[in-house]
């Protein structure tokens, strides 16, 4: 049993009446999110579930500042990011958020430790994170050890199994110690054993570092192991409940 860290004064994410319309202004315009209100506190471990086409990925992209909402407001870490320009959104994404994608998405030209270091390298040339390659490398090495890849630091992605690649991606999402990691079906592509161990890793980082996770998943088994389950149906929040069983654990 771990005590959840105290939620900070401002929630990490606060969405108010967020809407998203694709092809806005065109005859084939389609609203996929209809007024989403959502608050995510620091340290929360949340599952986002729902049938295909319910708008989960769109919502995740909006939260990840990869897409813009068509309406409503979005505060990230207490700061209104609704109408920031592309550069400011990129910087906010870089410093506050981590990403894990379904298809691990590592860069094939870089080995494991370099893939994990990439966000720090980007920061180095932006002048926002530490500029010293050494500390970034040390941190990347620690994270790779923590995800169980002690022996794969110098291997290229194509030399690793799918599960191992996803572990590298998990390490990469955490290298700049973000407040929130957004995971889009992080285990969707893996067998049951690998997917269980990846999930366990996310849980471990959540408990040890207090990192908040928002995990899109199709797998009810995994959703049942989250503290909070949000269900999206047809672009609306159809359910948002605390998972008593998991919280009580």
């Amino acid at each position: 049993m771990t005590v959840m860290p105290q939620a900070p004064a401002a929630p990490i994410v606060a969405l108010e009446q967020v809407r998203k319309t694709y092809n806005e202004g065109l005859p084939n315009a389609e609203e996929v999110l209809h007024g989403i209100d959502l608050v995510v506190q620091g340290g929360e471990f949340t599952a986002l579930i729902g049938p295909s086409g319910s708008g989960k990925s769109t919502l995740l992209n909006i939260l990840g500042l990869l897409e813009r909402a068509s309406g409503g407001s979005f505060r990230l870490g207490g700061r209104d990011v609704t109408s920031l320009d592309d550069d400011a959104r990129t910087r906010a994404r870089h410093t506050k958020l981590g990403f894990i994608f379904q298809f691990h998405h590592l860069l094939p030209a870089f080995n494991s430790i370099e893939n994990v270091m990439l966000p720090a390298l980007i920061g180095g040339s932006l002048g926002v994170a530490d500029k010293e390659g050494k500390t970034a490398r040390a941190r990347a090495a620690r994270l790779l050890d923590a995800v169980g890849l002690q022996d794969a630091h110098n291997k290229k992605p194509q030399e690793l199994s799918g599960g191992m690649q996803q572990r590298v991606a998990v390490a990469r999402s955490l290298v700049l110690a973000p407040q929130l990691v957004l995971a889009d079906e992080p285990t969707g592509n893996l067998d049951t054993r690998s997917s269980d161990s990846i999930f366990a890793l996310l849980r471990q980082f959540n408990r040890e570092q207090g990192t908040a996770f928002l995990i899109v998943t199709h797998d009810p088994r995994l959703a049942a192991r989250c503290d909070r389950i949000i269900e999206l149906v047809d672009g609306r929040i159809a359910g948002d409940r605390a998972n008593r069983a998991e919280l009580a654990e």
Partner: protein
Amino acid sequence: MGALGFEWTVALRFLREGRMQTALIIGGATVGVSVIFFITAVLVGVQSDLIQRVTGAQPHIILKPPEETVSPLIAATPEAPRVASVQARPQRLTTIDGWPVLARQTEATPGVIAIAAVASGSALAIKGDATRSIALLGTNLAHYMRVVRLDDKLAQGVLRLEPGDALVGNELARDLGAVLGDRFRVQSADGTNQVFLIRGILDLGTRELNRRYVYVDLRAAQSILGIPGRITNIDVAVGDIMRADLIAARLRAQSGQLIETWIQTNQQVFAAINNQNIMTLLIRVFVTIVVALGIASVLVVSVVQKRKEIGILRAIGATRAQMLRVFLLQGAIVGVAGALLGSGMGLLLVSIFSRILRSASGTPLFSLHFDPGLIGIVVVVSTVLGLIAAVLPARNAAHLDPAQAIRG
């Protein structure tokens, strides 16, 4: 990794990752650069050789006194042509007034590297029964040699013009039946004459010059031509002979004398060289465009291939400007690599062909003397070219929508 910074690291990795593509694109740039390098080096070599041959015994620029003209007392207008015909007056041998001042002034003109005072006119060469009409040139040999290189035109004897010495064209020597060391008489129209010793026989390159030219020292020529202490022209050598016209214009403005350049006397050669320059410029421009298009098209394909990776980099925090720089850098790196390899290959081509290509006389068609600055220019131009070629692909990369790119 890390020491180079994000943009350099990713640009170099992307290039290394696309082995074949990168090899092809750098290969294309290399061939293009070597072609440009080669034509430029050959062109410069061949042209300076050609000009050397054509101008031969002529100075680049000659200052002469203005021609004597006839001016009608009443000016003609289109409405009232008052003079039916104007007869040109016969030209006497005229001299330059106050020439020492003008000579110093000319020597100090930018672009001029040497001058020589010359007294020249027509005279007769007489030896025994043979009489030939000649062009007599009196000058100070040491000065004159800096304007016109006579040393590589000496066929026999020595280059020396003490009083009483003469250097003659080889055809003239033959016409007079004279050999080295023989004496002959030079006589002007009014009968003044002097005997000279043939110290050297020259091959001035063309038959016309070889059968007419006689060089003697300045004083001797002045006394034969009846213009003691005066000269008829100032011969000038310039640094860049293709710009002789420009320097001539300057001299014309400041001296008020009649200025004649090698370009005016060799219109056809100059036009040929000019046309050659334009043609090679065209070739160079088109090769450059082809190379740039090659670099651009490979990078455009590379951006499409790397959509997903660009999307990931954007998602984990790379800004548009960073992605733009990643691809601009790739263009610049290809440009620099192509320039260095291409210069090396061009140099190799020049050295091979300077051995193979020979002129009719058996001397190399062009020499291996090339300007090391050319490599510097090629590198700079090629880098800029790579950058420009990369602009469009880099913009594509920067404006890629990361959400769409990741989705696949």
